[in-house]
């Protein structure tokens, strides 16, 4: 009887402080497991194009490119929308150069960026907003992807397609469900800035949460498994 009372007291008082976090854990956890992670990641927002490089169109050889950009690194011959292009780094900068005639396509104009975004985007909605992001990216975009164009489409999930202004590549795809997921994750790990699970707040709350749960488990055990006995012994002190 003493244990029952002590457990009840501690369970109540601890839960008064950490109970809300239990609710947050369960709601954010449920959100994260219920929504398919591939959907969250916006895989269904984009088309994974497999357009092949047309060898006959290549009119600008690699040797010529290397003479023009002697320090070019990580060179790739790929396809941008429909034309063959060279993508490479030189001196911390990325470039997009037409493999047809050697025209430097980067940085992308707004029109080109929108054309690319529409090409990557699977939906049919209108473009509602285009902006070039060069510094201080939103949390949903890595700073390594800068500079990038954000092209927002009209849809209830508010999809954004991020196109690198330097390579023309798809560097981000986000919709509201992913943004909520990120929010849920930060609430789940109790780090509201860097989403890092190794933080002091989480540690202390977890510690008290475990204590509260142990007292709760003792309560359940006593009331469910020992409950019938307790009733038989009605009046027990």
């Amino acid at each position, binding site marked *: 009887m003493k244990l029952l009372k002590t457990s009840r007291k501690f369970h109540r008082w601890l*839960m008064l402080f950490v109970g809300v976090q239990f609710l947050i854990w*369960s709601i954010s956890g449920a959100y994260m*497991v*219920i929504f*398919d992670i591939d959907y969250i990641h916006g895989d269904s927002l984009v088309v994974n194009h497999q357009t092949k490089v047309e060898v006959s169109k290549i009119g600008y050889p690699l040797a010529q490119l*290397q003479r023009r950009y002697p320090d070019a690194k990580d060179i790739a011959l790929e396809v941008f929308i429909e034309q063959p292009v060279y993508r490479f780094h030189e001196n911390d900068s990325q470039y997009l150069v037409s493999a047809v005639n050697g025209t430097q396509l980067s940085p992308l104009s707004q029109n080109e960026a929108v054309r690319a975004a529409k090409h990557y985007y699977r939906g049919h909605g209108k473009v509602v907003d285009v902006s070039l992001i060069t510094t201080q990216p939103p949390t949903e975009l890595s700073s390594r992807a800068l500079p990038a164009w954000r092209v927002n489409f009209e849809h209830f999930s508010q999809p954004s397609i991020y196109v690198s202004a330097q390579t023309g590549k798809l560097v981000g795809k986000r919709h509201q469900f992913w943004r909520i997921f990120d929010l849920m994750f930060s609430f789940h790990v109790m780090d509201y800035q860097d989403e890092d699970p190794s933080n002091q707040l989480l540690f202390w709350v977890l510690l008290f949460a*475990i204590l509260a749960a142990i007292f709760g488990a003792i309560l359940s055990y006593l009331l*469910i498994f020992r409950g019938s006995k307790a009733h038989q*012994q009605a009046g027990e002190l």
Partner: protein
Amino acid sequence: MMSMIKKLHKWLSLLVALQLFIWLGTGLFFNLMDHEKASGNQYRQSLQVAAIEQARLIEPSLVLASAQPVVSIRLISLLAEPYYLLTHQQGLYRHLKSEYSLVHAYTGARVRITELMAAEIAQASYSGAGQIISVVKLSPPYQDIPKEKNQVWQVNFADQINTSVYVDSQSGRIVSHSNDDKRFVDFFFILHFMDYGNTGSFNNIQVIVFGLLTMLFCLTGFIWTVDLARHGQFNFSVSRQKRQLILLNKSQHTIAKFEVSKRVNLLDALNQQDIALPSSCGGGGSCGQCKVKLKTSSKITSAEQAHFNNQQLKQGYRLACQHNAGEIEQLSLLNDVALAKKHLLELSHSEFISPFIKELRFKVVGGYRLRYKAGAHMRFFIPAANGVSIPQRLPEALKPHWQEIALLQYQHKACSRHYSLACGKGQVDGGTNELVFTIKIQNAANNSVLPGIGSSYLCNLTPGQTISAVGPFEAFYAQPASNKTMVLIGAGSGMAPLKAIIEEQLSAAQVSKCKLREIHFLYGARTRQDLLYQAHFLQLSQQYQQFYYYPVLSNPDPQWQADKGYVQALLATQLHTIFDVSHTEFYLCGPAAMMTTAMEILIENGVDASNIAFDKFS
């Protein structure tokens, strides 16, 4: 509504408890773990990049002319040699199904990642001291890299942490490093995500179901907490202030005043004063037993709403455990003399009066007298002890009755048990120093349960031994004097409080010299041997014209001339022939089945509930 939420919370706890602890425990692990180790990259180093002689490079268009169509051709470096990586089919992510081929960038020769190359690439990415012990080509799925959908070479190193390096079998790319540290962490992820199929995902049906149940569990707990807070069940004051509590009896007379700490609840406050209200839940508001009466304006908690109707709440009925002493100035007890004190009793006499029932006589240590109304009971504190299923010192004559009882030695915990006082002298001359009980030794119904702990313990006491008890509690007693006929119906050892009431009535009439009302005692037993105090009652019925005794046997011997069957059956047949129901009070005490049937018979025959008193027999 609240009671449903509480029930839901209680039962959900059973469902989700284990997983909840797994979540909390693994969560703490993720919080504390070394992220460096968890990455699996303890011995990973970046690869050397080949210095490219531009003049020697073959033009990509030449390579493509004789290759399968590509979405990308990239100049890469493998083992300090330049290669063209041709991507024929590109997965949305690298771990998804893709198709690659490799061509040497100087010679144009098609190259495949052989076992040897894979080993060399893995070695180049490995900074540890371990030797390669095996190189195996594997197909998905993989234990270490569950998401990977392409064929890989697994290169295993002999080091303390069993490093494995995975190399893409088509492109030669280092897919991942893994080691025991990472595998350990992965195991915790499997537990946290309930990903028992090791798919590397957390979108499985079991985690969704448990997630939703847990959400409901937390929500009900949250609502409960809010409800507790709204009803002032959280008291933040840390003061040790005391206040005076005035205790009233049922008829609103002050019977005690004492100092209590403001922060304790009334149930505990009364307990500290040795006033033990009944409670089986210990103060959670769930058993509803610790009933008291407070000011009608006292707050009403959801537990009280579940246990009282509106009329009772308006009258001030509350549960003692739901209110702090700080909230109120006075409370009324519902049962008089719950102001019971603890007494030490010494056994003076112990005797079998039937094969399974003993009469125990105790003296109150200290020599003082206890006053009680007939029908009252005492609560005995049975200490933890070793028990035995068959009484010690069993008289020879009774042994045949105990033959079928299995001898069982057992240990039992401390508990408390109620027993009715079986003597009607509680109000004569300021009470009595001798307390009499008739106690049936409860045998176990089967081997899986223990025999009655309390009855066995008490009946095995030897004269001179002592035991503490609290009481007397007067919950069952004769109505104030009236001229109504009294009918007492009892069976087995349930006779004890009825015997006391009968004795009290008879002696009271004798003392006051007033006219005795009619008293009928219907008493059921199995056999003649089980009829307790038969001679005593026969003698009383001869001595007092107005006292009628009806023994009934359910399993009589052939010589038995009186009534046969169950006592409740006798009640049914006799009810209208002997008694005028509107002018009769009924007192019941006996086993549950007998009580229920008897009550039904009485109600069916138009007996007003106010004319029935019963003592639950346990």
